[in-house]
């Protein structure tokens, strides 16, 4: 075994293994890189409003539902959505960001007063 072969086996092979592992680890993360929120950055996304699934949702594929899985697209329902026992205000706002099907637009109709409100507030 001459010098070149020695270097190839004892330095080249470990390096090759390391390179393959590094590729496997870092390539997927680099490919789907989404902007991560960091405190102090401005927030330039459209507002989204997520709501829970209705308890007695129709099965997927049947009837009108906003559930994830029933449709790949955030469907916008018209005036008739409120009568279907689904989410009540499915008529999403214009250009509502369809992040997942449970998001509804921030422009829901007719505010209802809910008596004395409680809650809390926090900053970070």
């Amino acid at each position: 075994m001459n010098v070149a072969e020695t270097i190839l086996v004892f330095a080249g092979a470990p390096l090759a293994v390391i390179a393959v592992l590094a590729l496997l680890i870092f390539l997927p993360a680099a490919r789907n890189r989404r902007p991560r929120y960091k405190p102090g950055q401005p927030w330039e996304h459209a507002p989204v409003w997520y709501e829970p699934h209705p308890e007695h949702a129709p099965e997927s594929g049947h009837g009108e539902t906003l559930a994830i899985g029933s449709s790949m697209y955030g469907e916008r329902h018209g005036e008739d959505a409120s009568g279907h026992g689904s989410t009540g205000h499915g008529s999403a706002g214009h250009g509502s960001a369809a992040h997942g099907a449970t998001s509804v637009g921030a422009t829901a109709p007719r505010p209802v007063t809910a008596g004395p409100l409680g809650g809390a507030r926090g900053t970070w």
Partner: protein
Amino acid sequence: MTRALEVDSHDTSTAHTDAARTDDGGEQLFSFQELARLDEALTMSSRETGLRFTLYIGDLGTPTRVRAEELHSMSGRNPAEAVLIAVSPGQRVVEVVTGSAAARRLPDRACALAVLSMTGSFASGDLVGGVINGLRQLSDQAGHPSGLRRH
């Protein structure tokens, strides 16, 4: 007569449907895994407690409390039982608004505790994790009313 190829995407929306998702660009706020976690947390805490938890993420304007209460009043058919978690990452503010019926089961002190744990996660940049932890605390505090038990 030849025409240039139309390369612009067509607006596929109708009166009843949104545009196809492929039309609105690849920029997504959360990954599908994060969305699924949010979705499950919202749905399960709402079912467990009988309250209606909703989550708003976006700018709240000033004053934030007024806008959050306005959103809460629009958050469903029965806002008295609704709980709104409004997060404004740009302003670094989180507001929890409870309706009058929800406030009996979720006192302000419990909300403040949940807000505290949320702000801890938000400060380290983990929006989804903070929201899910907050939802967990809120639903633990609100408990499971006996009227919801089916057996």
